[in-house]
C-alpha cells in the first residue's frame, strides 16, 4: 500500500499543507507528490523537466486535481491526461472550491472520475480527505495495479 502514490496538483500552499495534515490525521501514509500546477504535473507523469530522471512506469494511484491554477489549469491538464495512452486510465478526483455547475459538468465531460468540493470548514475538509483516501487507495481497484 505504501507504493500507491497520491499526486496532488494544487497551487495554493496552504491547501497543500492542510491536505497533507488531513491525510496524516486520517492515517493515510502513502507518498504524497505535490505538483504546483499543470505543467509540473505533466513533468511528473511523463518524466520531463524537473522529473526527467523518474521512472515513468510508476504512476499515481489517484490524482487529486485542483481546477484553478496558473500556467495550466486543472481542466487542461485533465484533457492532457486523458489524451495520452499511458495516463488515460488514471483515476482523477477533482478537488475544488468551485460550486459552478459548468465546472462540474465540464470536468466529467473531460473524463474526471469524481468531483469533490473543498469545504471551508477544516473539520469537514479533513473528513472529506479521509473518505477520499480510503476510497481511492483502499477500496477502489485501480486500472493499473489493482
Amino acid at each position: 500500500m505504501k507504493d500507491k502514490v497520491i499526486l496532488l496538483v494544487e497551487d495554493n500552499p496552504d491547501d497543500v499543507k492542510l491536505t497533507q495534515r488531513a491525510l496524516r490525521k486520517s492515517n493515510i501514509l502513502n507518498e504524497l507528490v505535490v505538483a504546483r500546477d499543470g505543467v509540473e504535473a505533466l513533468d511528473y507523469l511523463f518524466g520531463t523537466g524537473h522529473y526527467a530522471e523518474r521512472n515513468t512506469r510508476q504512476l499515481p494511484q489517484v490524482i487529486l486535481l485542483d481546477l484553478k491554477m496558473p500556467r495550466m489549469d486543472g481542466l487542461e491538464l485533465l484533457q492532457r491526461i486523458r489524451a495520452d495512452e499511458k495516463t488515460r486510465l488514471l483515476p482523477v478526483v477533482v478537488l475544488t472550491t468551485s460550486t459552478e455547475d459548468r465546472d462540474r459538468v465540464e470536468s466529467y465531460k473531460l473524463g474526471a472520475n469524481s468531483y469533490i468540493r473543498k469545504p471551508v470548514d477544516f473539520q469537514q475538509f479533513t473528513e472529506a480527505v479521509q473518505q477520499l483516501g480510503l476510497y481511492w487507495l483502499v477500496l477502489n481497484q485501480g486500472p493499473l495495479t489493482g
Partner: protein
Amino acid sequence: MTDKEPHIPELADILDGAALQSLLENFYALSGVPVGILDLAGRVLVGVGWQDICTRFHRANPDSCRHCVESDTVLSAGVPAGEFRRYKCKNNMWDIATPIVVGGTHIGNVFMGQFFFEDEPLDYELFRAQARRYGFNEEKYIAALEAVPRFTKAFVDQGMAFFRDLAHMISRLSYNNIELARSLRERDALAQSLRESESRLNRAQEIAHLGSWELNLENNTLSWSDEVYRIFGLAPQQFESTYEAFLAAVHPDDRLAVDAAYSNSVRQGNDTYEIEHRVVRKSGEVRIVHEKCAHVRNQSGRIIRSIGMVHDITEQKKSEAALVRAKDEWERTFDSVPDMIAILDNQHKIVRLNKAMAQRIGLQPKECIGEPCYKFMHGTAAPLQSCPHPCTLHDGREHVTEVREEMLGADLLISTTPLYDNHGEMIGSVHVARDITERKQAEQRIVTLNNELKQNLWELEAANRELEAFSYSVSHDLRAPLRSIAGFSQVLVEDYKDVLDDEGQDALARIVKASSKMGQLIDDLLNLSRVSRSEMQHDTVNLSSIVGKIADRLAKGQPKRRVRFAISEGVGVQGDEHLLTVAFDNLLANAWKFTEKQDQPLIEFKAEQRNGETVFLVKDNGVGFDMTYVDKLFNPFQRLHREDEFTGTGIGLATVKRVIKRHGGRVWIEGAVGKGATVYFTLGQ
C-alpha cells in the same frame, strides 16, 4: 279608312228594296210592264210581274233555270251606263237590261221583261220542243206562253227610257249617298281624332304641369287650357277670363312686375314675353311658374293676340334648391378636409382642388385648374417617377406612395384612386396628399430611440457578463484564503491546545467561527447573484414536493429536533424549479432556525385563493418579529437578531424576494413577537 274611291257597296246596301218593290208594283199595275232589279250575282232585289212561264217552268227546272241565271248575268253584262240592251234569254224570252253603275262600277241591272214584241209571231214549235226537253206539261206551258205580255216597239222603248232614267237616278242617288256617308264617316273620324288629340294634349299638359293660354287683346278675352286652371288652383273653366282676372291670381308681391313685364313687351312691340312669378292658390299654397308667350300681329303689324304657356316649376325650383344645398355641402366638405385633394384628368391636369391644397401651394384655385399637377406640387415639367397617378391610370387600381417634397417642405403620403364617368370610362383620379412630416419625424425618433435602447441593452448585457465573471471568481478566490484561515486556526486549536491559554483558545475559536461565517456569506452572496443572472426556465414545478424534500433534509441534518411539517399536497406552478428551490431553501431554513426554541415547532406550507389570485405561504410558530421593522427584512444583510441569538447572514429573504420578483410575483411578511412569522408570496400567474 282612306277613301280614295268610294267604297262600292252591294246593290242590296243602297237600294231600299221594299220601297222600290212597292213603286214598281204600282207601275206594273198601271202599265203592265214587268220589271226586275238584280245584282251581278243574279240575286233578285225587286221583282214585279214575273210571268208564270218563268216562275213555274223556266226557274223551276234546274236546267232551264241555269239559262235564266246566265241570261241575268252574262247577257246583261257590259252594257254602258245610260244605255240598254235588248236580248233574248236562253229560254227564248225577250228581255231588256240597263245597268246600275255607281262611281264607275257596275253593281246591278234593271231588267224589263219577259215579253214578246207585238209584231212577233210566237214560235210554238220551239217552245214545245223546249217543253219536251225540260219535261214541262206542254198544255200548261203553252198556256203560260200565251199569257206573256206583248208590247209594241214604241211601248218598249218608252218603257226602257223610263227604266233607264230610273236606273240612272238610282245610280246617282246611291253615289251621292255613298259619298255623303263617306264624308260623314270622315268627319266623324276627324272629330274623334281631334278629340283624342285634345285629350292627349291635355294629359300631356297635366303631366308636364304646363298649360297653354291665349289672350285676345282686341276684346280682352283670355282662354286657358285645363292645366292652367289646375296650376292656378281653380276648377277648369271656372273664372271670368280676362287679363285682370289673371293678374288677380298672381301673387300680390309679383303682380306689379308681371303686369309691367307683359304690358311693356306689348308696348315695345317685342316678339315674346317671358317671366317667372309666383301664384297663390285659393288654398293658400304658393306655386312658382314660368310664363312665356309669343305675340301675334295683324296686317298692320299691331299686336292683337298673345299665345303662351304657363309652366309650374315649383318642384324644379325645390330640386334646384336641394341641388344647390347639396353642392354647397359637398364643396364645404371638400374644402374642410385637411388633406390636399386634387382631381386630375388623364393628362395630370388639375380639374379641381380643395382649399387645403390651394393654400399649401400658395395659389388661388383658378390659377391651377387646367394646369398639370406636377408643376405646382413638385415644380417640375414632368411627373415624378414615383407618382402613383400614371399607375392608377394604367391599371385602374388605387396606388399609394410616400414622397419627400422639398418644395413644400414636407413628407407626403400620396394616394390616387381611379375616377369613372357614367359610362364606366376612367376620366382621371382623385389625388390625395397627406402631410406625414410629423409622423415621419416621430418614426425617426422611434428608430433613434430603438437604436439607443439596443445600445443600452448591449451594454447591459456586457455588464451582466462582467458581473457573472466577477461573481464566479469571487466565489473561488475568496474561499481559498478562508480555508487557510479556518484550517490553520484548527491546526492551532488541535496541536497547540496546551500552549494556548483560555484567551488564546477563545481568540482562535472566534477566528474559526468568523471564517465559517464568511464562507456562508460568500455562498449566500453567490446564490443571490446567480438568482439574478441565470436564465429562467419555465416548467411545471411541484412546490409541495420541493418543500417536502427540503423538510426531509433539514430533519436529517438535525435528527434530534422534532419539527412538525404541514405541507399542502399537489401545489403546482409554472416557473423555474432551481430558483424556486433556492427560495424555499431559504424560507424553510429560516422557519427551521427561528422555531429552535419552540416546544412544538410547526412549519406550514399552503396555497390560498385571495381576490382571484393564488397566494402561497410558509408559516412558522417560532420567535416571530416586531412588525415595526418589517420594511428592513428584505434588504440584504439586514437582520433583526444578533448573531448570538440566531445565526444568519441576512441575505436569505433578499434572495427569496429576487426569485419571486423574477417570477413576476410579490412577497410580503407578517409576524408578531413570540407568535411566529408568515411569508406570503404570489407568482404572477
